[in-house]
C-alpha cells in the first residue's frame, strides 16, 4: 500500500476531529474579515425600507431548531428593521416549532423597542398545518384561517388585525424557510396568484433552488441565503450579531473542506496512475 493509499484510507474520525477544531478555533480568535453585501440581500433590505410606515406585513416562521443557527439571525435582523420602520408585524408559522422560535426572536429584539406593544405593533398568530393549501386559504379568508392568536385570544381583540381579511392590505410577506412548506409555497400563492411582494430568507441548502424565482418578474423580490446572507443583513442594519461572529469560522471550515477535496482527488489520481 502506497503512502497515498494509506492517507486516503485514514480513519474518518481523524477528519471529524480536524473539522471540529478547524471550526472552533476561529470562533475564539476573531479575525473580523470584511463582509461584502450582495444584490439579493440588498433587495430584501430595500423592500422593507420602502414599505410605508404602518403597513401590516407578514413574517412566516417556517423552520425549526435544527436550522436555527442559519435562520434565527435573519429573523432577528428583519424584525429589528421592520420595527424601526414602524411596520406592523403579523407573525405566523407553517412549522409548529416556528411559533416558539418567533417568540425567542422577539424576546431578543423587544428590549430595544420599549414602545412596541403586543396586539398593536406585532402579533404571533401561531401554527397552521396544510402548507400551500393553507396559504391559499389565507388569501381568500384570513380570519377563518387564524380565528385566534397563538395563545387562543380571538383576533378581533387585536387592533393590528382590524380590516385584514386577505393579502390585499399586506405590504409584503417575508418567509423564513428551511424547506417544505416554505418560501417556494409563498411565492407560488402570494406572488404568483395574488400579486403581493414576497421576499425572504432561507437555509443555504435551498438557495440554489430558489434563485430561479429571483428574476425580472420578481417572483421573489430578494433572498437572504444562509449564515452569509444573515451576516450581510446584519451589516445592512448595522447590528452585527451571531452571523457576523460566525463568518470567520465559516471561511476557515470552507478552506478545510476544499483542502480535503483536493488532497482526496490528488491521491485518487496518483493511485489510478500507479495502477
Amino acid at each position: 500500500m502506497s503512502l497515498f493509499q494509506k492517507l486516503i484510507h485514514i480513519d474518518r474520525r481523524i477528519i471529524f476531529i480536524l473539522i471540529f477544531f478547524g471550526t472552533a478555533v476561529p470562533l475564539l480568535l476573531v479575525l473580523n474579515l470584511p463582509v461584502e453585501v450582495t444584490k439579493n440581500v440588498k433587495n430584501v433590505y430595500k423592500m422593507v425600507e420602502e414599505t410605508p410606515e404602518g403597513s401590516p406585513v407578514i413574517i412566516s416562521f417556517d423552520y425549526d431548531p435544527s436550522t436555527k443557527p442559519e435562520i434565527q439571525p435573519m429573523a432577528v435582523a428583519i424584525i429589528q428593521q421592520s420595527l424601526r420602520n414602524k411596520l406592523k408585524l403579523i407573525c405566523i408559522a407553517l412549522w409548529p416549532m416556528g411559533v416558539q422560535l418567533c417568540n425567542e426572536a422577539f424576546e431578543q429584539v423587544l428590549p430595544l423597542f420599549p414602545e412596541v406593544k403586543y396586539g398593536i405593533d406585532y402579533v404571533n398568530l401561531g401554527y397552521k398545518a396544510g402548507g400551500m393549501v393553507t396559504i391559499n386559504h389565507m388569501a381568500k379568508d384570513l380570519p377563518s384561517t387564524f380565528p385566534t392568536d397563538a395563545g387562543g385570544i380571538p383576533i378581533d381583540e387585536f387592533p393590528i388585525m382590524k380590516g385584514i381579511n386577505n393579502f390585499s392590505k399586506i405590504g409584503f410577506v417575508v418567509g423564513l424557510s428551511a424547506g417544505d412548506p416554505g418560501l417556494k409555497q409563498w411565492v407560488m400563492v402570494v406572488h404568483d396568484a395574488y400579486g403581493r411582494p414576497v421576499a425572504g430568507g432561507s437555509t443555504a441548502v435551498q438557495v440554489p433552488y430558489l434563485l430561479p424565482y429571483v428574476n425580472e418578474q420578481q417572483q421573489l423580490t430578494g433572498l437572504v441565503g444562509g449564515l452569509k446572507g444573515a451576516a450581510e443583513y446584519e451589516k445592512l442594519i448595522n447590528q452585527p450579531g451571531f452571523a457576523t461572529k460566525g463568518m470567520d469560522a465559516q471561511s476557515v471550515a470552507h478552506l478545510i473542506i476544499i483542502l480535503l477535496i483536493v488532497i482526496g482527488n490528488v491521491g485518487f489520481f496518483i493511485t489510478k496512475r500507479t495502477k
Partner: protein
Amino acid sequence: MALIMERIGIWVGAILTFAIFSFLYRDNPFYKIAEQIFIGISAGYWFIYTIYNILIPNLFTPLLTNFSANLLLLLPALLGILMLCRLIPRIDWVSRYSIALVVGTTAGLFFKRYLQSDVINQMNATMINPFSAPDLAATIGQLILIIGTVTGIIYFFFSKKHEGVFGGTARVGIFFLMISFGAAFGYTVMARISLLIGRLDFLLGDWLGIIKP
C-alpha cells in the same frame, strides 16, 4: 431560582449535545437514548401544538360557541375521525375518504400553481433580449442563461434518442446541470458548517462562557 434552572438547562443541553456527538465515534447507548428523547419530545410538541393551534381554534371553539352556524364543520371533523381509523387495521380503509379529499385538493392546487410558477413564469423569465443588458458580463450571462435553460430541458427530453445534434445539445445541458449541482453542493457545505458553528457557539459561549456574546 430561574437563573439556577437556566444553568441546569444549559448543562443538560450540553450533555445531550455530547451524547449525540458520540455517534461520530460509533453507534452507542448514549446516542440511542438522546435520539429517543429527541423523537419523544418532538412527537409531544407536534401533538400539543396541533391541538392548541389548529383543532381548538379552527374546529372545537366554533362548534362549541355557535353550533348552528358552524354545522358544516361536522363534516371535516368526521373526515378527521375517519383518518384516525387508520390506527385500527380492520377498518383502516375508511380513512381513504379523508385521504381522497386531501389528495384531491393538493392535486388540483399543485397542478395550477406549479404550472403558473414553475413552468409559465420560468418560461417568461427566460424570454429576454440578451443584448439589452447593461454591460458585457451581463450580456454573456443572459446568453448563457438562455442556452443553459434550453439545453437543460433538452437533456430531460425522453422521447428522442440522444444522438447527433440533439445528443450534443443534451450533452451541453448536462454540463449546465452539473454546474448547478456544484453550486448546490457548495451551498449545502455552507449550511452544514453553519449548523456546526451554531453548536460550537452554544458549547463555547453559553456553556463554557469562553466566547462572550
